[in-house]
C-alpha cells in the first residue's frame, strides 16, 4: 500500500522532472502570470540571450500595479497618458514584451484587465492541481482553487519564461483547521486575520498550508481566495484548498477553463486531489469559527490583530522582548495609545479593493452596509476599486456603483490602487485608512500612511461612522447573509 499523502505532496510529486541528491527538484510550472513591475528585466534577459519563451501558451500578462484607477480613455475613446514617467515606462514595456514573445495580454483598456490574482481565477486560467507562479508574493491566492501557487523574484520569472520550470526544495506542511459556523458579520477576511494573529507573521515560514475543516468547506470560492491570498502574510509561500464541487462549479464555462470532454477529464482528475486519511502534517493550527469576531489590525504587522470590540494592546503585555519593542514602535507610528478602544479610532480614508477583497461578493457585502447611508463627513476619501473590468461590469449591472456613489464613494477603474504606494492612489502621512487590502506595513499605502486591515463589511461600517466600527451594530441578520 502506498503511504497516505497530503494534497501538497500529490501536486508536488506530479510536477517533479528531476531530483538532485541534495533534494533540489526541477519542478514543472503549468501557469505563469506576468505583470508590469517584476517582468521588464526578465524579458530583457531573454532578449539579450536570444532565448524565446518556452511556453507562451501557459503564460498570461496583465498590468495592474502601476495603472492609475482614474478614467483610462477620454470621451472620444482615446487612451489617456500616464503622468508618472516610470510607471508609463513599465507599462509600455509589458505592452511591447507580451506580443513580441507571443504571450496573451489583457491591456489597460480591456474589459478583462484587472489585478493578476483576480484575473487568473476569473478567466479559468487558474486550475486545480496546477503549479502557478507570478512575480508577486500574493500569488498564494490561487491556492483557493487547489493550485500550488507562489510568488517568485525577477530572476525566477526569467527562469520560468525560458524553461517553464523552477529549481525548488519541498516545503513542510501545515494544516490550518477551522470548524464551525461563522458568526453574524464575520467574513473570510476575519478568519484569515485571526489565523495570522494566532500563527504570527512568520509562523508559516517554510511551510505550505492546507486549509481544512467545515468552515472552509462551506466557504465560497471568493472567500477562499481571500483566505489563501494572505498565506504569505503568515509567512507561508502557498496555501491550499482541496478542490471540491464548489471549485468545479466556479470554474465551469470560464473562458480559459477546459471545455467539453477535456472538462470531464479534468474534473475526474481534480477529484483525486485531496489529502489522504492519515497523511502527516508537520504542524497543525486549530481555531474554532465561533471564536472569531470581526477583526481589525492595530499595528504595522498583519499579526497585530484584535477583535473590533477590543482595545489597543499594551506593548508591555507581550511576552517576547522583541515583540514589545516592535509593538511600541507600531503604536508610535500609528499614533495610538495602549488601552484605547478600537472603535474610537478615527478614520479618514477608506479603501475597498486589492486582490484580497475586490471581487463581486466583496462589493455586494460592502454595498449592503452603505445602501441608503452616507459616508461620514470626516472621511476625506473613500475608494471602491473593483478587482477587474469584469467585476466592475457585473457590479454596475447590479447597480452597486450607484449605491457607492450615492453614499459618497469614488467608483474607480480596476487595479492594485491604494494597496501599495506605487500609483497615484495613496493615503497621506499620518492619516488612518480602513483598508480591505492585505498589508499594513509602515508606508505601504504611501509614506506615513496608517493602515487598519479589515473586511469589506467593516470598511463600509468605518466609512459610515468615520471611525472603526462594529458592523454588527449596523446590520440586521438578513443583511449579514451576504458575507
Amino acid at each position, binding site marked *: 500500500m502506498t503511504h497516505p499523502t497530503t494534497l501538497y505532496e500529490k501536486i508536488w510529486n506530479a510536477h517533479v*522532472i528531476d531530483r538532485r541528491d541534495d533534494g533540489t527538484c526541477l519542478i514543472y510550472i503549468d501557469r505563469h502570470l506576468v505583470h508590469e513591475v517584476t517582468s521588464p528585466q526578465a524579458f530583457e534577459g531573454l532578449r539579450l540571450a536570444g532565448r524565446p519563451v518556452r511556453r507562451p501558451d501557459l503564460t498570461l500578462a496583465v498590468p495592474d500595479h502601476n495603472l492609475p484607477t482614474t478614467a483610462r480613455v477620454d470621451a472620444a475613446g482615446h487612451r489617456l497618458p500616464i503622468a508618472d514617467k516610470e510607471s508609463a515606462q513599465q507599462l509600455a514595456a509589458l505592452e511591447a514584451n507580451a506580443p513580441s514573445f507571443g504571450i496573451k495580454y489583457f491591456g489597460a483598456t480591456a474589459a478583462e484587465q484587472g489585478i493578476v490574482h483576480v484575473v487568473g481565477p476569473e478567466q479559468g486560467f487558474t486550475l486545480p492541481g496546477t503549479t502557478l507562479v507570478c512575480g508577486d508574493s500574493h500569488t498564494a491566492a490561487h491556492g483557493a482553487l487547489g493550485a500550488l501557487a507562489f510568488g517568485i523574484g525577477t530572476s525566477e520569472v526569467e527562469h520560468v519564461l525560458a524553461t517553464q520550470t523552477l529549481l525548488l526544495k519541498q516545503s513542510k506542511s501545515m494544516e490550518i483547521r477551522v470548524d464551525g459556523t461563522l458568526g453574524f458579520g464575520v467574513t473570510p477576511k476575519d478568519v484569515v486575520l485571526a489565523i495570522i494573529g494566532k500563527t504570527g507573521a512568520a509562523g508559516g515560514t517554510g511551510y505550505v498550508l492546507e486549509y481544512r475543516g467545515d468552515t472552509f468547506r462551506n466557504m465560497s470560492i471568493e472567500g477562499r481566495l481571500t483566505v489563501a491570498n494572505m498565506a504569505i502574510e503568515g509567512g507561508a509561500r502557498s496555501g491550499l484548498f482541496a478542490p471540491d464541487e464548489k471549485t468545479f462549479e466556479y470554474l465551469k464555462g470560464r473562458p480559459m477553463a477546459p471545455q467539453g470532454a477535456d472538462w470531464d477529464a479534468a474534473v475526474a482528475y481534480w477529484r483525486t486531489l485531496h489529502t489522504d486519511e492519515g497523511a502527516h502534517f508537520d504542524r497543525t493550527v486549530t481555531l474554532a469559527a465561533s471564536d472569531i469576531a470581526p477583526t481589525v489590525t492595530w499595528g504595522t504587522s498583519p499579526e497585530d490583530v484584535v477583535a473590533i470590540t477590543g482595545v489597543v494592546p499594551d506593548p508591555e503585555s507581550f511576552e517576547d522582548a522583541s515583540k514589545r519593542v516592535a509593538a511600541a514602535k507600531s503604536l508610535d507610528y500609528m499614533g495610538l495609545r495602549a488601552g484605547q478602544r478600537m472603535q474610537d479610532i478615527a478614520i479618514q480614508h477608506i479603501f475597498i479593493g486589492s486582490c484580497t477583497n475586490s471581487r463581486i461578493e466583496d462589493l455586494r457585502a460592502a454595498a449592503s452596509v452603505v445602501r441608503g447611508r452616507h459616508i461620514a463627513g470626516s472621511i476625506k476619501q473613500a475608494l471602491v476599486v473593483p478587482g477587474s473590468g469584469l467585476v466592475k461590469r457585473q457590479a454596475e449591472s447590479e447597480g452597486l456603483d450607484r449605491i457607492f456613489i450615492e453614499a459618497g464613494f469614488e467608483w474607480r477603474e480596476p487595479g492594485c490602487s491604494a494597496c501599495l504606494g506605487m500609483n497615484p492612489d495613496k493615503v497621506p502621512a499620518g492619516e488612518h485608512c480602513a483598508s480591505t487590502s492585505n498589508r499594513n506595513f509602515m508606508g505601504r499605502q504611501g509614506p506615513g500612511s496608517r493602515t487598519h486591515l479589515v473586511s469589506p463589511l467593516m470598511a463600509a461600517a468605518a466609512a459610515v461612522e468615520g471611525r472603526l466600527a462594529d458592523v454588527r451594530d449596523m446590520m440586521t441578520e438578513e443583511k449579514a447573509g451576504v458575507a
Partner: protein
Amino acid sequence: MDAVHHIEGRAYPLGLKNVDTDMIIAAEWLKTISRTGLGKGAFAALRTAPDNVFDDPTYAGSPIVIAGDNFGCGSSREHAAWAMLDMGITAVIAPSFSDIFSGNAFKNGILTVILPQDAIDRLIEVAKTDAIHIDLDSQTVTTPFQDRFTFEIDAFRKHCLTNGLDEIGLTLGQSDKIGVFEQSDGAARPWLVPAHA
C-alpha cells in the same frame, strides 16, 4: 551567456575597500525597466571626486576593476552587477567579495578573482601603465612583466563560466527531460493548455 576563458585589457586601479552596492549603483536607479543603461549611473558616488579612475580617459572601457577588501557589500540588488556589465566590466579582482555580490556577479557572467593584498598592490601599479591578463582556464593573472598570480575558484562556477552556462542555461541543458515531461504530462492532462478565448 558568453563563455569566459580569458579577459585581457586595461584595469581600473580603484584599490578602495568596502565598495558597497550603493556606490556601484544608487537606489534611485532601481525603478528602471532595463538591466542595460545602468552604466550611466555606475559608481556615481565615486565619480564626484575630480581625479577618479572612472572618468580618467586612460582607463575608459576597461574590462577589469581592481579593488580592496569586501567588494560589493550592502544590499542584494542585482542592479550592481548589471551596472558594471553595462560599463563593459567583466572581471573584478579583490582580496574578498560580499557573498551576495559574488553570487549576482556569477549569475551575470562577471568573474570575481580573489588575490591577496600584496598581489593587488602590484597589479594596481601595473594597471596604471599596462594591460592585465586573466586566464580562467589556468586560473592565473599575469602582466607583461613576468608577474604571475594563481587564484582559486569554485569548480562549479568555473565550469559554468567557461561553458557560458548561466542558471537558465544549465536548466536548458535539461531541455530533453523537460520535453519528455511535457510529452507524457500533456498526454495525461490534455486539458492543461488554456483554452485561449
